[in-house]
């Protein structure tokens, strides 16, 4: 049976990581997705604010995260995957900010990942298509970024996972980096061949895919075993809401408008053997404090349901 995981954002807090990991465990999870991205938020970065979290030497950062690591271990939660802060390039920012992201933030993220004995780190590709003109040119820039950390990842045995993300036209969400499964499969193979190691893999984000109408089954079937980690969450097909699966419907029959059956068929086709990991932090935010453990429990139950369905032939 596949393991079930959830992101730590909104569940684990620095003041008392023990309580958060205990809640995750009690809800029925055995894994987590460590939200390193919350320590250098995208909302700040887009305003060119760099908070200095990644300034200290790694040893100091490890000391900071020591209680988190200990609490996870104590509660039997394995840190299976981690989210690197993003973006790693800001088009209109000063060169020194972009240099900082590549030279300080990214390698230290990998070191923290290794410190947690975590083997998968999720990154976002650069969003520069409108400036460079094509998705190919955009990917070339993402690959340049990957090249800066790939040797370290290889040495640590970490797989960098590129995630399908989105961009927008007005309020309408459209294809962003890494939304073409066929191209991503070729690129992952090429990069890994170059390094003779699995330095690059894929993170499939169900919510982002749903927003741009990606056919889950087809996409996952094309990726195959290049698929390493998941961000499972739901939305209305319009906004990136990060809710729990089976939340949204669009017809009077009230069948889910997100193709969860296609998702399961796709995982089977891809022979996925990783962790069913949920990226549903906003659920915890929207439920009252008293109901959060139950909400988290419900998410874990959905995970167990998925795992069971995947076991059935």
């Amino acid at each position, binding site marked *: 049976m596949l393991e079930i995981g959830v992101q730590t954002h909104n569940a684990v807090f620095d003041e008392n990581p023990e309580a958060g990991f205990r809640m995750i465990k009690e809800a029925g999870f055995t894994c987590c997705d460590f939200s390193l991205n919350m320590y250098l938020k995208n909302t700040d970065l887009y305003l060119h604010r760099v908070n200095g979290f990644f300034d200290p030497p790694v040893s100091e950062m490890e000391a900071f995260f020591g209680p988190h690591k200990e609490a996870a271990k104590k509660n039997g939660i394995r840190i299976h995957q981690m989210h690197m802060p993003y973006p790693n390039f800001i*088009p*209109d920012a000063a060169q020194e900010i972009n240099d900082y992201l590549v030279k300080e933030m990214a390698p230290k993220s990998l070191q923290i990942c290794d410190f947690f004995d975590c083997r998968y780190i999720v990154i976002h590709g650069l969003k*520069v*298509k*409108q*400036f*460079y*003109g*094509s*998705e190919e040119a955009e990917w070339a820039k993402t690959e340049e970024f990957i090249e800066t950390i790939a040797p370290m990842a290889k040495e640590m045995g970490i797989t960098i996972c590129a995630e399908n993300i*989105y961009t*927008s*036209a*007005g*309020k*309408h*969400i*459209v*294809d962003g980096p890494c*939304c*073409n499964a*066929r191209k991503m499969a070729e690129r992952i193979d090429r990069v890994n061949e170059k390094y003779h190691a699995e330095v690059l893999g894929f993170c499939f984000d169900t919510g982002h895919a*749903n*927003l*741009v*109408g*990606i*056919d889950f*089954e*087809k996409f996952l079937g094309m990726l195959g075993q290049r698929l390493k980690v998941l961000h499972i969450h739901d939305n209305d*097909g*319009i906004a990136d809401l990060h809710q729990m699966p089976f939340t949204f*419907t*669009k*017809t009077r*029959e009230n*069948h*889910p*408008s*997100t*193709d969860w059956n*296609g998702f399961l068929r796709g995982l089977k086709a891809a022979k996925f053997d990783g962790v069913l990991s949920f990226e549903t932090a906003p659920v915890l935010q929207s439920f009252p404090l008293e109901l959060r453990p139950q909400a988290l429990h419900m998410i874990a139950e959905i995970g167990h349901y998925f795992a069971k369905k995947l076991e059935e032939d």
Partner: protein
Amino acid sequence: MRLVCAPEGTIMDARRPGQGIGDILNAGFAETILDGLLCCKEREFKGMDKVRKDAAREKRPYIPDEPERIGEALKPLMDACREKGLAMSIARAPYLLRDRKSPELTEIYRNIAVEAVGLAVSARCEAVIVRPLFAGVPFGKEWEMNRTFYLSLLPLLQESGTKILLENQCKNSEGHLIRGILSDPLEGVDWIDALNQEAGEERFGFCMDAGVYNLCGQDMYEAATTLGNRVKAVILRDNNGHDEDSLLPFTCISDYGQQTEWLGLIRGLREIQFDGYLIMDAKMTLDAVSPILRPTYMKLVKETADYFKWQIELESLMKKYEHVVLFGAGNMCRNYLINYGDKYPPLFTCDNNKDRWGEEFFGLTIHNPEDLKDLPEGTGIFICNVYYREIEAQLRGMGITNGIEYFNDEYLPALNMHRLKGL
């Protein structure tokens, strides 16, 4: 490039098309579509018993039952178009609602498509858009079933020059429109090449439906450049990315801007030097306005079509001239230089700000506009400033006889990350 106005929204009834044809012609269009939807709309496939009875009461053929009467149903329209001089060199077969799942409908649709293709051939259309089979088509069998379907239409083409155009689809997944058959442009390439190979000649091409690409949040630059010269037609219609509407381009907007990424489409069509049918489908915009206002809106539809053509063919403007000079020394001028500076190097640029005369701007010297009076023959002046009309009036007032063109940097192949400020 052929600018075509889709008839729906203008021609309300195929049996009484006169006013609609007049509106299309008066707007400046010379072509419309021989559109099967005018006698068999999608809704004819919903609640079919009732629609069948309605058709009988209205004494009109119910095409799903009598597909062979499609020619009869469209005859008044075809006759009127011929009489008034409105060309119909592209046709479209009727199609099913996207939420139809019953395999029985596939047979009905197949029969209608056969008749629609036959009609297009007899009307000497150059192309006919035929959507793929989807209702009841199992996952993984899409190509197999559609290969048979499309090849079965080949004998109908006989010695005509008519081509069949496949079209990108979305599918209805419990009310959510997601990527469907042929939404992957590489799939389109594979299908068309395989069909043409079996046909032994180029009998199949592609029609890009911008509205459907937008519903699926797809990158239209990728679609256009992947499909390349297989793209024979493009349907321009706008929507909010969630509902399958057919609105006039640039009208579906939010406070953050356009809801359709026209940038990718224009970039892509320019790169492949698209020269096929540009079909304007503003059905819902036109439906929504009073018939009294419709002629005015129709003129805007035509101007929008002209604008797309102009953007797609932007480079041809520069090709027209032996030399190029620019007017304006700001971001737009810089964008010209980045995108076209090597291929069409300007002699200089000019600006009304006398403090900048003599200054070097990205390798160009900024001149006094008075210098434009002494340009060599065959030199075009490209206005690189959003105050187009004001500057054009200034130049005309100076008695300049050289060609005056507008340059625009909203949809260029590449854009700058940093805007110059304070110019």
